[in-house]
């Protein structure tokens, strides 16, 4: 496993997988076939009495202690070597910080650009620094065979390189609560030039500003903008709707207005929409951020 020839994390893991999987398959088939053969050959209908009362053989035992030992030692060695190549980040890797929270991702780049998707240039190694704001999450890229837990208070990292442009799944692999399975996004691998262009692009337009803030704080992990119900109610058509909420254990029906939304963001436990778990953490948005979010939500029909 010469690092110089190593093209990607996938190349580091897959051969190990093939080796162990193959060896296991051979063993399994061997054991099954031998067992089935014995069962058929020595079935009581064919062998009414046992033709041997042999109860052991030291040589055989030695063979099947030593050979498996050698085999598993080989498995251990390749497994360990492959793991090391996941840990050693190639020099000159692009550094990105992934911030995980219940239940959304945010990726920030050296120049301050942030994004809910992980944009990376094709063919360049990327080192992802993993930061959690609350509980343990998991950074999982199946296509690149990369996984690392995101533990609050720890400086974990992972690296990978995308050799082909495209969109790859990114999952949260460590169980983190209600929205765990919704905590998914993608890696967008762009050709180097396109990536540079994306990186320098300033997020546009005041009219989308509210949307960006929702994205930044991870609200969209639980609330959709298109009407689908996720962990929390959807934002679409919310303004002006009448909903039943539970306030201090009492149900009441209200009409969604600015005051209600403001309270729901700053103090989510106060009124909880009926049918949804009371799990949203409070978000301390700055006044102007709150303003543009409310304006944005108002327009989201």
């Amino acid at each position, binding site marked *: 496993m010469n690092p110089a020839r190593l093209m990607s994390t996938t190349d*580091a*893991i897959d051969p190990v*997988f093939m080796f*162990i999987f193959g060896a*296991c398959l051979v063993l*399994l088939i061997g*054991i099954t076939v*031998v*067992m089935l053969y*014995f*069962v058929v050959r*020595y*079935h009581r209908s064919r*062998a009414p*009495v*046992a*033709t*041997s*009362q*042999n*109860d*052991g053989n030291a040589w*055989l*035992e030695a063979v099947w*202690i030593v050979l498996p030992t050698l085999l*598993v*030692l080989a*498995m*251990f060695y*390749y*497994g360990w070597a*492959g*793991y*090391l190549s*996941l840990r050693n980040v190639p020099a000159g890797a692009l550094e990105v910080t992934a911030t995980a929270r219940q239940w959304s991702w945010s990726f920030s780049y050296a120049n301050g650009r942030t994004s809910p998707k992980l944009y990376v240039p094709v063919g360049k190694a990327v080192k992802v620094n993993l930061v959690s704001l*609350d509980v*343990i999450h*998991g950074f999982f890229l*199946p*296509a690149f*065979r*990369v*996984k690392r837990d995101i*533990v*609050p*208070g720890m400086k974990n990292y992972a690296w990978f390189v995308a050799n082909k442009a495209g969109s790859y*799944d990114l*999952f*949260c*692999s460590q*169980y*983190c*609560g*209600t929205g*765990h*399975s*919704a905590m*998914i996004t993608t890696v967008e691998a762009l050709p180097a030039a396109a990536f540079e262009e994306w990186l320098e692009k300033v997020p546009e337009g005041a009219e989308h500003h509210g949307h960006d803030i929702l994205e930044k704080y991870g609200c969209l992990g639980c609330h959709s903008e298109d009407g689908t*119900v996720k*962990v929390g109610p959807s934002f679409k058509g919310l303004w002006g709707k009448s909903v039943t909420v539970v306030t201090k254990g009492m149900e009441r029906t209200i009409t969604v207005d600015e005051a209600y939304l403001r309270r729901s963001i700053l103090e989510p436990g106060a009124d909880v929409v009926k049918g949804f778990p009371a799990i949203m953490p409070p978000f301390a948005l700055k006044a102007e951020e709150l303003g543009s979010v409310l304006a944005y939500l108002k327009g989201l029909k």
Partner: protein
Amino acid sequence: MNSAEPVERGFWNDTGTTGISSWIFSSDHKRIGLLYFYSTFGFFLVGVVLGLLLRIELMAPGRTIMGPQTYNALFTVHGVVMIFLFIIPGFQGSFGNLVMPIQIGARDVAFPRLNLFSWWLYMAGAVIILTSLVTGGGPPDTGWTFYVPFSARTGTNVSLAVFGVFIIGFSSILTGLNFVTTIHRLRAPGMSWDRLSLYVWSLYATAWVQILATPILAITLVLVMAERMLGTGLFDPAKGGDPLMYQHLFWIYSHPAVYIMILPAMGVVSDIIPVFSRKPIFGYKFIAFSSLAIAAFGSLVWGHHMFTSGMSDRAVMVFSFLTFIVAIPSAIKVFNWVSTLYKGSISLEAPMLFALSFIILFSIGGLSGLILGAAATDIHVHDTQFVVGHFHYVIFGGAGFAFFAAMHYWLPKFYGRRYAEKPAVMAWTLMFIGFNVMYFTMQVLGMRGMPRRYYDYLPEFARLNLVATIGSWILATGLIIMVVNLFRGLWWGPPFSGNPWGGATLEWSTPTPPPTENFLEEPTVTHGPYDFSALEREVIKTGEETA
């Protein structure tokens, strides 16, 4: 009890008292064994229904029958029930209690009243866990692993559930020390260590794991409660704690715990295979010793659950290495079981079918464990459906199928009645097929990257999930047939007496069902547990007597 032929009732009739109190206050190991059997098997059926609901939810992407919070609570409760209420207490408590004292020629366990107390503790823990589902913030939603900081923050009723598990841990400890003392002190004359059945050997090894590992779980759960109720912050990074230390402590117990689940199962299989092959077990000493080796090395490998956690690389190396070492004693067992079949006279009755399928299912599970044990490959499949497949293969395909084998092999002995053979074989066939359809598919899903504990998934995983769900229905059909057939047979079936399987261990030399103190007179042991030549002489002798 309306069968034509009269059935001897043994310990069922021996005591003066009758009714429920002659059971729940009895210190007879056989009655306690049956109490354990019915309570653990009852919880198994509860867990099974929950598992089935999980599969229905996963049948198609998106919301199928429940919301995410319900799903999360459901797999947590499924895991907790299956692990702590079924498989850990199940084997030791029911078949350990029923069979072990008889197999060593004792009248009872060393501390009969402590034994009863263990059951009561178990029930108390179970009630507390059930209470936690309907009180406070609702059923816990942390996964059976209770990882902090999530378990310290969630609003659900984690504290109470954890307390229930704590109580059950206590029960497990007491059973363990009872069994170790029994095996050391109460063997009948002539029952030397090399004449113990392999089932007793495996229970002995298991009991040690219970004694040496369970206290760590107990203290860990106390710490979780303290974390939630007192804010001790030992695992909270904001207060200087380290979440990974929780994981260490949890797995220091919970990895050895998987051997609490599998060792008795291996013991059952080691007992059944020679009987149905009419041939001594191959490599007795190696199998007995490998049980101890599994118990010993099993305590050294817990870190393999933490390869992606951010643990030091050196620890990854050490734990990966030790994980591979612990696979070797299992390999020894598998090879010896298969060799026992060679030149035997094999009869494929229900217990044997379950035992043989145990070998295959356990091998699939165990070999997939090797993929998890190698650091590089575990990174890819950790926390995916592959792990879910792995442990259902070893727990359900391994321990579960061996449990079913034990049910078919030993329960008739204690009821004096038996089930019908044909439906039993049919049930086995369905279960074996359904099992593989479901869990093999889940392993493939895992290799393709579908994470575990996912309520919803991307469309690319839809087809295989549907297949897995269909597998669960086949499995369910088989299980229902098995349960109905077995219990109908035990309660109303034809009589079962003497030694129809032809076993050479001591339980087959007492009347069926055994009398209260197991033996009419204290047995003196003159031959090994798999010495069928000794047995044949006895069979002929008793045959003459009855003729």
